[in-house]
């Protein structure tokens, strides 16, 4: 049984909230009583997701946001506080995968794109969330890194670089804000059944049976297993957890 948190009266923000781990986490926050801001670059998908949650009786706001634009990120936080008055929890989850490439042949455009979204996007999101949270002197942030933030993988240097960067951001900012009542951690999902991983399989970027064989636990993860980790990291019980990069990966990075 999953823990039942009570986040009534609190406000949660999730980027990349239209599908996969972001959507599962937004839903879990809402089920725990939080008002939830769902942000995504895909307006239609995030709007539909928010409508469904609203129809189920949850307090939600959907926003279009390309996290690679700091202006859009700043506007996202402004709209969040304009609507709900505060920001207590954030899951900076928006991210992209790029095609497998020989490191010697990687195009600068591809390197820039993955780092703009994955790395700079988390940087900008955290920066503007902290501007609100430091006024409140409270809050919890979870940045979405990856198994790619902990280990290497041939052909994926730029992606893994972006995800390693997130852990460095997380640890440094966590140290800076621990004395100010704000906790910052990262979650490192393994290979999770999400639209992103489905795309990788469909585009021959990942072999499905090999992916399962590579998991010590013998299966891929589920989006709700990431949501469970994010909610716990945001919960009062995790009050001593600061600057951690928590692998939720079925043992992938234990090796």
């Amino acid at each position, binding site marked *: 049984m999953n823990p039942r948190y009570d986040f009534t009266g609190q406000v949660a923000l999730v980027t990349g909230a239209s599908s996969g781990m972001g959507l599962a986490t937004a839903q879990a926050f809402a089920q725990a009583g939080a008002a939830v801001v769902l942000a995504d670059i895909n307006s239609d998908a995030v709007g539909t997701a928010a409508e469904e949650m609203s129809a189920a009786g949850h307090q939600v706001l959907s926003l279009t946001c390309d996290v690679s634009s700091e202006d859009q990120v700043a506007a996202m936080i402004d709209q969040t506080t304009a609507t709900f008055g505060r920001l207590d929890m954030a899951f900076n989850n928006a991210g992209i995968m790029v095609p497998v490439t020989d490191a010697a042949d990687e195009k600068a455009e591809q390197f820039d794109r993955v780092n703009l979204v994955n790395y700079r996007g988390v940087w900008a999101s955290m920066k503007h969330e902290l501007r609100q949270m430091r006024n409140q002197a409270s809050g919890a942030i979870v940045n979405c890194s990856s198994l790619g933030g902990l280990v290497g993988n041939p052909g994926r240097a730029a992606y893994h670089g972006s995800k390693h960067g997130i852990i460095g951001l997380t640890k440094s900012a966590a140290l800076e804000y621990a004395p100010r009542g704000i906790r910052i951690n990262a979650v490192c999902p393994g290979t999770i059944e999400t639209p992103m991983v489905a795309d990788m399989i469909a585009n021959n970027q990942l072999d499905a049976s090999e992916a399962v064989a590579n998991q010590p636990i013998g299966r891929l993860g589920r989006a709700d297993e990431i949501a469970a980790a994010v909610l716990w990291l945001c919960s009062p019980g995790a009050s*001593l957890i600061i600057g951690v990069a*928590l692998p939720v990966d*079925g*043992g992938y990075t234990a090796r």
Partner: protein
Amino acid sequence: MPASEDYGRLAGRVAFVTGAASGIGRTTALAFAREGAKVAVADIDQNGNQDTARMIEEVGGQALAVRCDVTRSEDVQAALAQTVEEFGHLDIAFNNAGAEQQPGPTADITEEEWDRIITVNLRGAFLCLKYEIPLLLERGGGAIVNTSSGAGIKVFGRGAAYAAAKHGVVGLTKDAALDYAAFNLRINAICPGIIDTEMMDRFTGGTPEGRDRVIAQEPIGRMGKPEEIADAVVWLCSDAASFVTGHALVADGGQTL
């Protein structure tokens, strides 16, 4: 909230906790009970075990106090056998019994002190794992958490035996996790930072100056509470952590960053 078998993150489970007569072990045993588990309270200190068991019963839980020296294989086997006899099976184990080293430079550590620290902290965790794992496999899986330390991932000086033992616990945890990941048996470690326990009192001398000296290492500006470790251990043992295995989770207020 009263303990209940029907409610909670560990409803209906049976848990075995070593080092349960005080500190993190006692608090976690209580947290397990509050989350619905029946708890075997194991420690070398049987009076302490009985106190912990009484505390569990006072919140409506079920407990078994069992004397256990984790350095003795026959003690570990007997304690686990008693647990299964009393409660029917085993689902969760928190291998937490440990001992702190007399601080000092490496060449000054006596061979006896080295052996004592390695035996209690590392061999004790191994013996517990060795005899818990078959019981959990029989049950179709479960979750184990071993207590490592901040000294299991970083070092602080003047504690080579303790650091070696606690680093060893992390290696033991990860390798064992790989061995049983495919069998629905998850094995993780917890790495507590500076936690306000009797062990920490022995380390600091319990004086305001001693306490301030260790608190100065804490970015959050305070010692951690045993309850904060207990919450992490409960989470790791719950179904919410179903995709988490082989990890050494640091709960230290940022001390080792």
